[in-house]
């Protein structure tokens, strides 16, 4: 069988230097959702939900970047913008050196999308219940390789099913016949089918039971090696993040608070928010007794986020400057980025 690369008709990414440049660079990304008020004839925008509000981050080839944060902090929106499901309000995203939101032809756009795929959180609602597994996984080929022969598509579907640990006969079944863990395998198969470079995993295990969660985490680990994949792994569970990722970015209210290699986040935690997040996790070991930092209050609304550092109303280190000046994400130590006026290191 021919490889998928031979089907590639355009060469978009020739300028990209794999050794020095990250595969994805996000530069001051903003995504605001307008809240509008309807009057008799017109609707007017009364406020903006600042879901993503100035995110800077990068993703290196072959690594797993863990994106962690509480609900509503903008993790999923960031991922959705990267796979072009949403248009950014401001800022740009470079994939292999190309601004993916610049005007481009249909062929070029497909070429970008071929490389960026996403696995969704809920394996129950992200698969069309009326379509057979074969059709579900064949769909990416129909879109990206319309000239491919049906037989070839079919054999590729079976190949990918085997890769994610399912059997041939599963191809003729419907989603409701699968368990949660198996459905998540289908979601992964769909994303993997056209051999992307980057897969964005949006809470891929949070809907699963712990015993099944471990199976999926191991599968992802194997696939990453086999296919030389780059992962952006979104989760709210820090122990999962620690297990899977090489680097971690901590998000809060639409901004990156800290980004560093995984080990450093746990050894040399710099941002007060990361410190409190770490101390809030209940440990499954009855002998560990910790002095816990319990944050007061709730996450503020993204419609009207606090001025200055978004974390300052809940921060135990906050001073006057924090409510006035927004701290920028700075590289305090090599590869350790923090946006805080009074970091712990």
């Amino acid at each position, binding site marked *: 069988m021919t490889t998928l690369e031979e089907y590639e008709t355009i060469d978009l990414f020739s300028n990209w230097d794999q050794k020095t440049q990250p595969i994805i660079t996000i530069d001051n990304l903003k995504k605001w959702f307008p809240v509008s008020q309807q009057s008799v004839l017109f609707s007017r925008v009364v406020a903006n939900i600042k879901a993503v509000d100035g995110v800077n981050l990068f993703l290196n080839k072959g690594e797993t970047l863990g994106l962690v944060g509480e609900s509503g902090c903008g993790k999923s929106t960031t991922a959705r913008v990267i796979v072009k499901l949403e248009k950014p309000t401001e800022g740009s995203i470079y994939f292999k050196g190309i601004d993916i939101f610049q005007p481009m032809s249909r062929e070029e756009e497909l070429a970008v999308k071929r490389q960026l795929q996403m696995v969704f959180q809920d394996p129950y609602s992200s698969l069309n219940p009326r379509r057979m597994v074969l059709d579900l996984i064949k769909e990416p080929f129909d879109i990206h390789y319309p000239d491919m022969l049906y037989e070839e598509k079919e054999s590729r579907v079976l190949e990918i099913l085997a890769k994610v640990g399912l059997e041939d006969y599963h191809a003729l079944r419907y989603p409701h016949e699968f368990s949660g863990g198996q459905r998540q395998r289908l979601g992964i198969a769909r994303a993997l089918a056209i051999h992307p470079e980057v897969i964005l995993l949006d809470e891929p295990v949070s809907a699963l039971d712990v015993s099944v969660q*471990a199976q999926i985490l191991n599968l992802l680990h194997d696939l990453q090696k086999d296919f030389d994949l780059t992962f952006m792994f979104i989760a709210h569970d*820090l122990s999962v993040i620690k297990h899977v990722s090489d680097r971690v970015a901590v998000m809060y209210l639409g901004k990156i608070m800290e980004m560093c290699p995984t080990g450093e986040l746990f050894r040399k935690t710099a941002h007060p928010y990361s410190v409190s997040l770490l101390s809030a996790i*209940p*440990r*499954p*070991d009855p*002998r560990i007794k910790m002095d816990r930092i*319990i944050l007061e209050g709730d996450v503020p609304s993204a419609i009207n986020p606090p001025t200055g550092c978004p974390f300052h109303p809940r921060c135990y280190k906050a001073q006057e400057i924090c409510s006035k000046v927004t701290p920028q994400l700075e590289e305090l130590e090599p590869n350790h980025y923090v946006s805080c006026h009074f970091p712990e290191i």
Partner: protein
Amino acid sequence: MAQNKKILDARNIYTYFYTESGVVEALDGVSFDVNYGEPVGIVGESGCGKTVTAHSTLRILPKNGKTVAGDIIYKGVNLLDLPDLQMRRIRGKEIAMIFQDPMTSLNPIFKVSDQMTEVIALHRKCNKKEALEIAIETLDQVGISEAEKRITDYPHQFSGGMRQRILIARALALQPSLLIADEPTTALDVTIQAQVLEIIKEMQKKLGLAMMLITHNLGVVAETTKRVHIFYGGRVVESGPTEEIFLDPKHPYTYALFESIPSLEKDKTRLETIPGNVPRLINPPKGCRFHPRCKYATEICSRVRPPEFKFGKGRRVACHHFEELDLHIDMESIRESKAIKEEA
């Protein structure tokens, strides 16, 4: 007097659901107990019968569910024999329950004050005005600031963590002796979860409550409870003091469960997995319900239901091979990583 220590003693409960596709054996001979003033954990994956246990205890099963056998002794009275009217006096007043989802447990069209004073006035036999005072006082205790003002708000004006506090306050305002908390923090974010857990722990200590904490989160159990019952497939597979079970699990399922969660303390590239899925209870595996997924299973496991072995200080385990197995959590790596932390 060992008998008198127990506030709740459930023995051999069988709860079945009658559905179109067959009988679901949701609880299959479950026995557990809760002592006075003691926080007890009930742990298991989804569909293992944790919530059904709570609902059976309070007799709030849906119409197609029935507890067909067993005894649930609460303060010396068998709840399953009580007439409905007396059972209503037990619910809320004696045994209170906090439900999993704070978003749907409050009625959106009534003010918080109405929803709280109604139950308080009914169970504590006081008038509305006194009930309102009690409500404000308990809201204050669970950390809702300006409780007097906020009590007239509607549920949607509160965040998830706040709503869970309101539910806790509503449960505690009736001064129950036993609190059943069904996944009280599952729907909340970690930092909010920490707040709510702290309140539950504090109130439990202050009021000397007996508590049944139902959860799938092993971390929450380890921090909150003294004793724990591990559920699998509608049965209790292991129970005993929390600390002992976490450090020295005896049932292969308990062991596998601990090994399959990624941990902040351990450094591992691969997780141990339990093959297969949680069993369906419509046609559950014969013998030991864990045997199709168990790596130590032998022929007897697929045939005979394992008896309960008692040993140590109140530990029970239901496994044919518990005496031969040598399971222990690899604590070496945990100790090492702790040492690193202390250095830093």
